[in-house]
């Protein structure tokens, strides 16, 4: 009997040897006369266990990890193809607490299916949402998204339904759907995990968005730092086109929709929506002044839905299961789930999709297991390079957009970077300004010049020079950047700086307040 063996082809798994492990398993199983079918799935998101190998057994899939090439002969000797015990055995994958405690809605298929198999996708609930959408009017689709409470997952958390309604109501025959897959924030990898593990889910979400607003063309803007995701995405688009899901007659509905993937150029600022549109149009990725909003005048001057990848990939399940199903998860005005990403110095790093409302402490300790170094957690940067550093005394915070905003922090794209007590927060504050100086698009002065002046004044503070002058100067500069920048790059870089200064003054050579 042929045994199905799963070895992820996800970037993170490949980065720690999954490719070599897959080759070794295939070669050594063949040499022993064992018939196996090797499936290159996406990652389950248990990053610390990668490469995580799974074997299908009558009782369910059994996991082993982290597996190295050197472990393969021993695994075969022990009978892992029958799910036998071994020091690397983790039991049934679905029973691993880290996974079992999650609420996987958007990521239900990631790591489970063959990412490029349409048969697998359909067998696991794929296209159920699209079929519902094809039976609805555009207004009804938009109403479902609005009622679900879905907000933009890129960080700004703007209600998706309102954005879609604006585009639906905008005059014009030509409209676009644009997916922002320029996932530049350090500590975030959910876009990549979904693209490499379940690309048809994004395609389905974009198809639904196209039906909702009357667009016939979609663009996916992917960052160039994701070479594996780029290959998977293009292969998926090709297969969807061949299967008649994309093209002039989507699933025989008479409706047209096609998708083109575009590769970015390593510029962080292109994650800002108007800079992204400029980049697709073939220009430098410089921010546009708003208004006009992209929903009115977006790509090529036409009404455009531009959403983060996770926002669009969350739409299929909303249509398939109904707005109320999704809305019943979460707390306050944060409805549904967010795929949190545990990164940096954390013992059990990976992807945790949970309903909004669990506390930071639960995420960091119950899921993350504390630091990888075994030392105490000192600070967590939540929401990417523009997010505040949150100190341990704030770990009671519930993961909710409004609760975070109330304490001067933000959830952003759901990435958390954990630092232990060896971190120098003065240096991290300096890095925030240095990063802004490197990545500023140069359009507005507070960001372009302010970031460089910020590095200089932090250097003076760290060198102990005239704190009486330099501290008020830094705070004044930060205020100017927050109030005067065109977009979040300059407007939010002060958050990591000011939070580091407020919570960790000793690292700046100041007495504890």
């Amino acid at each position, binding site marked *: 009997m042929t045994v199905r063996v799963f070895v992820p082809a996800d970037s993170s798994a*490949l980065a720690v040897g999954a490719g070599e492990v897959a080759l070794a398993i295939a070669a050594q199983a063949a040499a022993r006369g064992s018939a196996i079918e090797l499936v290159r799935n996406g990652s389950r998101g248990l990053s610390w266990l990668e490469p995580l190998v799974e074997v299908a057994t009558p009782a369910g899939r059994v996991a082993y990890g982290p597996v190295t090439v050197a472990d393969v002969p021993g695994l075969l000797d022990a009978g892992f193809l029958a799910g036998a015990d071994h020091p690397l055995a983790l039991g049934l994958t679905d029973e691993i607490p880290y996974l079992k405690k999650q609420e996987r809605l958007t990521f239900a298929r990631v790591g489970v299916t063959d990412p490029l198999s349409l048969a697998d996708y359909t067998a696991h609930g794929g296209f159920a949402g699209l079929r519902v959408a094809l039976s609805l009017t555009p207004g009804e689709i938009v109403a479902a998204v609005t009622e679900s409470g879905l907000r933009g997952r890129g960080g700004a958390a703007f209600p998706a339904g309102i954005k879609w309604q604006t585009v639906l109501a905008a005059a014009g025959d030509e409209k676009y759907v644009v997916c922002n897959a320029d996932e*530049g924030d350090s*500590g975030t990898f959910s876009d990549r995990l979904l693209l490499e593990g379940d690309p048809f889910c994004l395609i389905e979400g974009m198809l639904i968005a196209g039906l909702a607003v009357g667009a016939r063309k979609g663009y996916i803007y992917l960052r160039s730092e994701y070479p594996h995701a780029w290959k998977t995405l293009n292969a998926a688009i090709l297969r969807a086109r061949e299967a008649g899901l994309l093209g002039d007659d989507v699933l025989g509905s008479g409706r047209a929709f096609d998708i083109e993937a*575009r590769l*970015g*150029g390593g510029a962080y600022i292109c994650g800002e929506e108007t800079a992204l549109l400029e980049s697709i*149009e073939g220009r*430098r990725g410089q921010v546009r002044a708003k208004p006009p909003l992209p929903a009115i005048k977006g790509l090529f001057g036409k009404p455009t839905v531009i959403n983060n990848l996770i926002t669009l990939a969350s739409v299929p399940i909303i249509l398939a299961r109904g707005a109320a199903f999704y809305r019943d998860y979460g707390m306050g005005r944060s409805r549904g789930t967010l795929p949190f990403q545990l990164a940096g110095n954390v013992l059990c790093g990976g992807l945790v999709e949970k309903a909004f409302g669990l506390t930071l402490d639960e995420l960091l300790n119950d899921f993350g297991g504390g630091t990888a170094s075994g030392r105490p957690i000192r600070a967590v940067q939540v929401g990417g390079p523009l997010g505040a550093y949150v100190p341990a005394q704030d770990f009671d915070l519930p993961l909710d957009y409004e609760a975070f905003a109330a304490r001067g922090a933000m959830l952003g794209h759901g990435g958390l*970077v954990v*630092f232990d007590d060896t971190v120098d927060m003065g240096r991290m504050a300096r890095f925030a300004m240095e990063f802004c100086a490197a990545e500023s698009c140069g359009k507005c002065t507070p960001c372009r010049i302010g970031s460089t002046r910020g590095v200089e004044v932090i250097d003076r503070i760290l060198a102990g020079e005239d704190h009486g002058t330099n501290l008020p100067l830094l705070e004044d500069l930060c205020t100017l950047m927050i109030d005067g920048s065109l977009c979040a790059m300059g407007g939010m870089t002060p958050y990591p700086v000011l939070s580091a200064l407020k919570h960790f003054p000793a690292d700046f050579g100041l007495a504890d307040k």
Partner: protein
Amino acid sequence: MTRSELLHRLIAAHPPRQDSLLPILHSIQDELGWVPPEATEPLARALNLSRAEVHGVISFYPHLRSVQPGRHVLQLCRAEACQARGSAALEAHVRARLGIGFHETSADGVISLEPVYCLGNCACGPSLRVGDEIVGRVDASRFDALLVALQEDLA
């Protein structure tokens, strides 16, 4: 095929519109490893742009190189999540081992070193990229082994 013929072939493979610029530049760099200065003029002519506009785009995007790199381009992640896992120490080791800094090429022409801000491998850092491969959980000894493989062209 001469380089000029190659450039014309790559340009002609895309619709003659401004939004083809970035895809064409990617195709040039994929073929040559960089975007040579002689690409600017034919690109401007084909897409009806000024040479300044084309140059402006090439110089804006860090991914696009206007200087020919070494045989292998090694990108080291400098972002926060890798810093939390010890990338600063790794960076110091890499600089010392190669004897070069960022945006420089080793004297033997084998390695060009570039900074990168996040490869999306944030739970398995420190990370680096060589060509289209990402390498995770990199420490000094793993880097040294990788370097030997690159120098012998085994990677």
